Every structure is written in C-alpha cells, then in structure tokens.
C-alpha cells in the first residue's frame, strides 16, 4: 500500500466522520424540533428550560441516557439482545455515504475541488434499498431476544409491515430510474438540473412521489403507521425491554431513518441540490453556487422532516389489518399504475428526456 492510497483512505474516513457528526447533530435537533412543534400543535410549550429556548435539551437527554441504569432482562438471549440495537443503528448510518449533499465545491483562492458526496457508487440507489432492508433485522431480533410477548408482537408486526411496504417503496422508485436511466444518485441529481434547476422528477412522476412518501412513513414506523410501538396495545413494542443507551440507539436509528428517507425523497423527486435559478445567478462551479445548492438540499430535507412531525401531531393510528390491506390492495396496484404511466410518458415523448 503506497502513501497515496493511505491518504485517500484517511480522507474518506474523515469525510465519513464529518458526515456522521453533521447527521447526528441534525437528528438531535430534529428530536427537539419535534417536541417543540408537537407542543405548539397541542397548545403547550414543550421543553424550553435547558439553554436559550431549550436549545441544549438534546445534550441533556444524551447525558441522561448515558447515566441511566442499563437493565438486561434475566431470560433474554444475551448476544442477540446486544446485537439488535447495533444492527439497527449501523444500518441507519451506513446509507449516509452515497447521498450527494451538493455539487462539487471549489474552495475560494485555491484550486482544490471537493465533491460533496462521499462515495460514487454505480448502484447507489440499490445500495440504499439493500441496507434499509437489512435494518429490519435489528427490530425483529430485538423483539425476539427480549423474551417478552409485547416485544415479540412488536417485532413481528414491524417486520411484516416493513416487508409489505418495501414492495410499494421499491416500485415507486422504478419511475425515477426510468426517467434518469441510472442508479447512481449523483447522476440522478444531475439529470434534474435542466429548466434552470427546476426539472424535478416529481413533475413527471407525481403518483410515484405520493406512494413513496406513504411507504417511507410506513418504513420508518412513524405515525400513522407506528403499529410496532403502539403504546396503547403493546407497551412500547419491540423496545419495551430496552433501557439507557441501548434504547437511545433505537431512538436514534428511528430519527436517522427519517432523515435518510427524507434525503432520498429530496434526491429522487425534488431535484436533490438543484436550487432554481442558482446556476443563472452564481454560475456553475463557483463556491457560492456550491454553498447555495448544499443549503437548498438541507432545506428540502428539513421540509420533509417537518412534514413528518406535522403528520404525527395530526393523524390517528391505523388498525393493523387496515394497514396490511392498504399496503397490498391499494398502494401496490397504484405503484404498478404509476410505472405504467411513466413508461407511457417516456414512450410518447422520447424527446423530452
């Protein structure tokens, strides 16, 4: 191994660490934002005591999680009980490396060009789907290894739900792949940069976008699809027996998953880092263009995160049989229809693409 390879590997590790830190910070403040916004929706204040406006609340929570007693159930299957939260968090974080956070950024007064994506991967989209599907195991194994019937029910529900909605999710993405002609996320974003940065795939594939959003909420186990942790029926579902830092890992994974599906929605449907007219104002390849694009990307993601919180404050929960029949009998046929519509569009107007 020569020194150039070593430097490359070290740089990749540094980039991954930076991305993880940024994501974890955003996630920490998503939790705070969720509590404040829910408070606003329900006509109360929410946490506002720690730091100015409650801004230090995430760190106080983290400290609390670290200091709490870690209780392991007596009859649990030890090894898997410890493995489950690790799988969940790892699977949630691993998808982070393929998302293009922005175009290449040129550092002012130097010739250094930094791409705002960690790994160019020919099958980036499939990689994301694959890692997400591995994440199911964490929840299933957590439910099984706790040796608690509520946990087991939660784990089973969650895996059934995720398998069912993964189908609709995958099918809703096929339209985007047809439009882009590639699975590389960075190239998918590039294909959406026409029309002054407004050629977003949502305009060609709106039905797929709606199906993706519904399936993504179900994939992340959020309201109104949070059956695996329905507290009125199952105590806390698959993480009933988890406490302290291991519970924190599940909690973290849920919010990281929210973040990643929001990033995927932004990348595939809302043009990724393409900000309308940014190219006309700043010119491609300049530092300001990169900065504006990256901020635009983050704002779109934050919009989706806000949508999640808004839904949680608004909607009641599904019943489990309703959830299943909705996924298989409504979402899946409509996903197939959306593929048909998009293919027809591409066939009729081949010059448009």
């Amino acid at each position: 191994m020569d020194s150039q390879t070593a430097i490359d590997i070290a740089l990749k590790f540094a980039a991954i660490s930076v991305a993880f830190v940024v994501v974890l910070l955003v996630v920490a403040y998503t939790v705070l934002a969720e509590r404040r916004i829910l408070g606003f929706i329900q006509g109360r204040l929410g946490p506002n005591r720690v730091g100015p406006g409650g801004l230090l609340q995430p760190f106080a929570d983290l400290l609390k999680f670290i200091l709490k007693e870690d209780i392991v159930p007596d009859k649990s299957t030890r090894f898997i009980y410890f493995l489950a939260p690790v799988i969940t968090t790892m699977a949630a974080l691993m998808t982070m490396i393929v998302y293009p956070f922005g175009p290449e950024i040129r550092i002012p007064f130097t010739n250094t060009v930094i791409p705002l994506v960690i790994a160019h991967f020919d099958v980036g989209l499939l990689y994301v789907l694959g890692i997400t599907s591995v994440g199911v195991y964490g929840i299933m194994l957590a439910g099984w290894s706790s040796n608690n019937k509520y946990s087991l029910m939660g784990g089973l529900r969650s895996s059934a739900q995720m398998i069912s909605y993964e189908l609709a999710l995958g099918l809703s993405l096929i339209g985007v792949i047809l439009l882009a002609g590639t699975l590389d996320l960075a190239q998918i974003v590039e294909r959406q940069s026409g029309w002054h940065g407004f050629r977003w795939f949502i305009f060609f594939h709106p039905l797929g976008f709606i199906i993706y959003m519904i399936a993504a909420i179900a994939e992340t186990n959020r309201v109104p699809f949070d059956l695996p942790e329905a507290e009125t029926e199952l105590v806390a579902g698959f993480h009933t027996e988890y406490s302290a830092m291991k519970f924190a890992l599940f909690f973290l994974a849920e919010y990281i998953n929210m973040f990643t599906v929001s990033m995927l929605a932004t990348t595939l449907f809302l043009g990724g880092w393409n900000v309308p007219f940014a190219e006309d104002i700043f010119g491609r390849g300049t530092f300001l263009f990169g900065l504006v694009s990256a901020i635009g990307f983050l704002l779109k993601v934050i919009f989706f995160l806000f949508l999640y919180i808004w839904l949680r404050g608004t909607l009641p929960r599904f019943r489990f049989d309703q959830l299943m029949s909705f996924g298989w009998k409504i979402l899946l046929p409509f996903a197939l229809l959306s593929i048909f519509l998009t293919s027809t569009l591409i066939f009729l107007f081949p010059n448009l693409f």
Partner: protein
Amino acid sequence: MLVLLFILFGAMAIGCALAVVAQRNPLYSAISLIGVFISLACLYVMLAAPFIAAVQVIVYAGAIMVLVVFVIMLLNVEEEEHRRSRLRFLVPAAVALAAVLIAEVAFILVSVQESRVVPTSSASDVGLTQSIGAALFTRYLLPFEITSILLLMAIVGAMTLARRSGLLGSRDQLKRD
C-alpha cells in the same frame, strides 16, 4: 490491500457458513446465513460486480432471510434436540461428498494457475447495471422471461396448495373478512 480485504470477507463467509451448520438453535443458524450472504456481497463488490452485490443483499439478506427469520420467530421453534443417531448413516456420505467438492476446488485452482487467460481488470463494465440490463433484455431475453414464468408458477402453486389444505381458509371465509 485487496488481498487483505479478500481474506477478511472470505474468512467471514467461511466462519458464518460453519456456524450455519454447527448451531443448534435455528435462529442462530439463520443469522449466520445472513452473515454468509453479506460477506459474499462484499466479495462481489471486490470483483467489480456491484449490481450483483446489491441484488444479493436485497433479495437474499433483505427478503428471503427476513421471511425465514419471521417463520422461525412465529412458530417459536425450540432448540433442536440431540437426535443424531437417526442420521448416523449419512456421515460417511457427507465425508465422501465433501472430499469430491474439495477435489473440484483444488482442480479449479490448479487449472486457473496454469491457464494463460488474463483476468478481467476491476475497471471493466461487465458487472455494471447498464451492461447487465442490456444483456438480460437482448441476448438472454428468453431465459429471463422463462425464469419469471417459473417464479409465477411457484407463487400460484403455493397459493393453491395453501388453500387446498385449508391454511388460508375457504373462499367464502376470505370474502367475509
């Protein structure tokens, strides 16, 4: 560097494969099998076939094994008891078959060393999505379509069998639900 990674993932695959056979608890066997699939996917990535790797993870680790684990959890299969005497006669057969397999692998290793074929470089586009898609829908279209009909037949067959043996309930009962 590549050799190190190859040894790492190869050892992971072999270790997990041994665990699949050695474990008494069916759930542990299933988890080890997932480990085998994931380390195989890593090996595919190193062979410049990212598409195959991704499909390996999605289909095997993400779909099939989820169902297997699901069934094990649902039936709550107990640990296998020590009833080895019934299958004792299979041991010599297993040893013989393993010897044949090892001989085959050794033969392949030797013949690869002797042949003059240049290995494909990692920069080739054979394993990329575009070339695989083009090949599947032009040159290998007929086998591809026949495979999909085969899968459809398997689905319909499973449904028929389940309905006949009363696992799904009669049609009237389905309608009432």
